[in-house]
């Protein structure tokens, strides 16, 4: 692990190259532009890397869909209103089970909104298509995790054949910082998904309603089977991180947050615990599939839940959908700090507990 001074954009580009990606299609939009320009720069040094700057995000998305069908490890990067346009190709990829990989840099919305930061694209990333939202969505909290999850995105997309989103933001992407990247790990290979010779095709439209129903039920079965391998979360209550076995008894109040806000929340937990307060943090690393079992195991033992996010409640809705209160002895109170389109600092989270 060598120490480097890099932006999140540079880390993403490195992760894509290390994951074996060969093609990028994109349309520039802040805060994702430097992923495209950074990839182009690398492509000029390495002729095996290909790119195309398309006329808009719709074209970029369908280029990715076409390239992956032909067996190329392709991806795109977008943000905000670009993520809206990207839904057309992503929805087709939902239906055809394409290993479509997209890095999303969330920015303030609706519409053009602001250009750097938000956490308002959670719904869009998971359920932006006209279907059931069977996508894999990662939410990295640190730049090291941004690297690891970008690499992982290609692996899970090609192994399980579900569209995969790395949901990040301009704070993580634009911050330049000291990073030590872990380059270890293998890559899942890519292969053509269609074949002219053997007339192997993928359907995108169905004549009979029952046919589509059957296909969707099979997709759901595959999605649930995949979820067991892919779902990731972290429970933090002080210096010990145990991702599998939780020390639930040591936490009265639980903060739930994701992405970079969870990094600030983690810092807040350290400060609060040093003041003797029994506070923990639950952080979904995969927003989809959601770490439902892990969440329920923890919340059944806490008195109060604090949702902290840079949105009016997109994470809260996910959490509420996934808590099963049926056999709870006592239902925890749910409160939150919802700040759409602005950042949340450690001090603000600490102040919730004064």
């Amino acid at each position, binding site marked *: 692990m060598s120490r480097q*001074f890099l932006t999140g954009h540079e880390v993403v580009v490195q992760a894509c190259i290390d994951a074996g990606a060969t093609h990028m299609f994109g349309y520039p939009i802040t805060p994702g532009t430097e992923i495209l320009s950074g990839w182009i720069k690398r492509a000029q040094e390495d002729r095996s890397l290909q790119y195309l700057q398309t006329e808009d995000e719709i074209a970029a998305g369908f280029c990715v869909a076409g390239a992956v069908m032909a067996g190329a490890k392709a991806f795109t990067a977008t943000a905000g209103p670009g993520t809206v346009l990207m839904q057309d190709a992503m929805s087709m990829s939902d239906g055809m089970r394409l290993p479509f990989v997209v890095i999303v840099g969330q920015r303030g919305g609706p519409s053009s909104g602001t*250009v*750097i930061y938000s956490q308002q694209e959670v719904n869009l990333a998971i359920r932006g298509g006209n279907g059931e939202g069977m996508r894999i969505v990662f939410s990295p909290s*640190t730049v090291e995790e941004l690297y690891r999850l970008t690499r992982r995105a290609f692996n899970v997309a090609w192994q399980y054949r579900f569209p995969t989103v790395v949901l990040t933001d301009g*704070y993580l992407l*634009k*911050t*330049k*910082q*000291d990073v030590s990247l872990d380059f270890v790990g293998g890559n899942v290979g890519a292969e053509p998904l269609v074949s002219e010779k053997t007339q192997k095709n993928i359907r995108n439209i169905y004549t009979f309603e029952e046919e589509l129903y059957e296909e969707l039920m099979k997709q759901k079965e595959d999605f649930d089977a995949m979820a067991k391998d892919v779902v990731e979360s972290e429970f933090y209550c002080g210096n010990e991180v145990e991702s599998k076995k939780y020390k639930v008894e040591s936490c009265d109040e639980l903060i739930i947050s994701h992405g*970079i806000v969870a*990094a*600030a929340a*983690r*810092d807040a937990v350290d400060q609060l615990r040093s003041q003797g307060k029994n506070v923990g943090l639950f952080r979904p690393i995969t927003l989809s599939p959601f770490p439902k079992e892990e969440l329920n195991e923890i919340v059944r033992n806490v008195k109060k839940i604090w949702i902290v996010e840079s949105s009016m409640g997109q994470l809260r809705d996910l959490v509420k959908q996934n808590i099963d209160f049926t056999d709870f002895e006592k239902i925890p109170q749910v409160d939150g700090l919802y700040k759409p389109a602005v*950042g949340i*600092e*450690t*001090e603000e989270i600490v102040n919730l507990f004064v």
Partner: protein
Amino acid sequence: MILKILLSGDGGQGIQLIADMICRVSFEAGWHVTSIPNYGLEQRGGVSLNFIQISDKKIVYPKFSKPDVLLIMSSQARERTEEYQKDSKDIKILDIKEIEDNLKKNNVSMQSYNVFCLGMITKILEEKNICKKEDVFTLIEKKLSTKLGWEENKRVWGFSILN
């Protein structure tokens, strides 16, 4: 130890350039460093900010609301950073307004104001044992010596560091 520096000025004044130099030198000296720029939609004329943190521990969050050092290079920037001055105890404010007369008296060209400001911040970095002024100069030389106005920048640097 954590030092939080907020740089502010008009787009084109060279805020991002000096931010890069402060961070690069601190990184080379072995510190944990984060730096995040902030600017609006304007292609030019807007306020340009950079939030820098230098620490002996890993830094988790790049933004902050209470800087230890605030550099203000324009009136627009002064207005924009007003909220960062409230409730900041022991904040050190380096305001171009306070030193402009002195800069004019010494014929410092406006293109070199950022280098002068970098000198003022370098003095703080040296005071805090973060890096040495020679290291900053080596980097400035590397980045700027082939560019227009180098002689002036070199003179301004010396003037800034000695005053």
